[in-house]
């Protein structure tokens, strides 16, 4: 395994709604012997709300420059942070004029294009590799899992690290842990509705409901995902969706880092499995 040390970009939900994603990411990398160094004084990536690409590039030039000084590639557990960091990286690398303009704002934005930003899932499957992960697993997950990828893992093409129509990195990881993948291919990459949650919650709830309902009909024990906005919609908001649409779902939703942590034999509380909004006890009973 070539990865031993990475810069860690937690993202804004890491100390709030997606606490368990942050906890499990740190615990898993520690167990894998990869040191994470938090990007010192990191700032928000711009999320989906900063629409001006140049503003996104400027915001992330600072984050990238901080990691570059350490000589480390960045890893983040959030799909949106990943997209913003890596598209900024690509744009800044390719465009000298843009880099000069951004650097002109402040010397803290002086980024030279020497590193990469990566999503945790990409690091697990493609950098560390399934063989290495398998050798460290001590538990088997007797779970039926609906793998939900959302938007920024297979799209857009410049930053994607998996197939846009039928991504399988999470599937492979889940099968490696002993899990069974339920029929879910039509939902895998459908948007959760998150970007409309605050302005058109009627649409956002219906979209999330479709994903939750498909997982339930397919007999899944849980949905696995890799983005805190998807986590917000499908887990944190699940009870609100049930109430608004008069349905009962009760579908546990966990981060892929939490599942991997369980397979690696890490304690459930250390992985924040007591912090997911929908109770995860039934899942824990199936880890042997």
């Amino acid at each position, binding site marked *: 395994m070539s990865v031993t040390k990475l810069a860690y970009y937690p993202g804004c939900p890491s100390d709030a709604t997606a*606490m368990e994603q942050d906890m499990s990411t740190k615990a898993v990398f520690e167990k894998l012997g990869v040191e994470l160094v938090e990007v010192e004084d990191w700032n928000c990536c711009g999320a989906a709300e900063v629409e001006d690409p140049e503003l996104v590039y400027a915001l992330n030039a600072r984050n990238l420059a901080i990691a570059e000084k350490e000589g480390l590639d960045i890893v983040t557990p959030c799909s949106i942070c990943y997209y913003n960091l890596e598209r900024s990286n690509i744009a800044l690398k390719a465009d000298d004029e843009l880099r000069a303009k951004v650097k002109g704002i*402040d010397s803290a*934005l002086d980024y030279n294009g020497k590193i990469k930003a990566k999503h945790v899932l990409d690091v697990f499957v493609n950098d560390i590799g399934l063989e290495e992960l398998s050798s460290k697993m001590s538990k088997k997950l007797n779970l039926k899992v609906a793998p939900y990828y959302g938007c920024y893992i297979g*799209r857009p093409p410049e930053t994607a690290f998996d197939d846009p129509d039928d991504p399988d990195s999470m599937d492979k990881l889940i099968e490696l842990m002993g899990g069974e993948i339920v029929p879910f291919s039509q939902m895998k990459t459908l948007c959760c509705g998150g*970007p409309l949650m605050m302005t*058109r919650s009627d649409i956002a709830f219906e979209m999330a409901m479709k994903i939750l309902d498909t997982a339930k009909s397919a007999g899944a024990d849980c949905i696995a995902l890799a983005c805190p906005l998807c986590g917000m919609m499908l887990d944190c908001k699940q009870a609100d969706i049930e*109430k608004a649409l008069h349905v009962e779902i009760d579908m546990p939703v966990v981060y892929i880092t939490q599942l991997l942590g369980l397979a690696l034999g890490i304690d459930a509380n250390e992985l924040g499995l007591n912090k997911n909004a929908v109770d995860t006890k039934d899942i824990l009973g199936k880890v042997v």
Partner: protein
Amino acid sequence: MIKTWELDPNFKEEIMNERGGEHLTACFQCSTCTLGCPIIDYVPSYNPRKIIQMSLLGMRKEVLSNPDLWVCLICQTCTARCPQDVRISDLLGAIRRIADKEAEAGNIKIDSSRPIFDKAFQHQLAKYGRLYDMGLAKEYYPKREGSFFKGMMAMMNDYKDFGMRMFKKGKMGPKAMFPEKVKDLAVMKKIFEEMGEK
């Protein structure tokens, strides 16, 4: 019916000069973007192909005041599937930014709360460098509802169950009342002054 004398022949250049709008003229109207879009199940009028064609024709006012611009999820499905690399997701972002400037100048009215939300979000970043949920909600709801009182009521309605649920899981405590700030706030201020919406 299109009134040819009302068309703005410069509109396509205006879009193409915005970052993200550069590939507008590559569109050959195949409609892959529209047919694959997850929003059309909920908003049947939503049609990015049509927005592009109207933009190419110069129907500036109709395009900029179309409320459907603001239901785009930025999910990148259209961008990933477009055979002409129009980068529709970025293109719609460019059109939204022009629409927002026109609304700020009082030339059009936008029938969506999304610009209010996006701005409130950006204000948190400019002030703190990170997202401050409470600050965002306190700015967004009153502006959306048109009064402080109505805004607080709407916020309570959306958050009472959710807040309690998060509190019980230890995700929303007294700490969430205060913003998490980056240390180098001076640089955040500079970024928004130089690059932010004026």
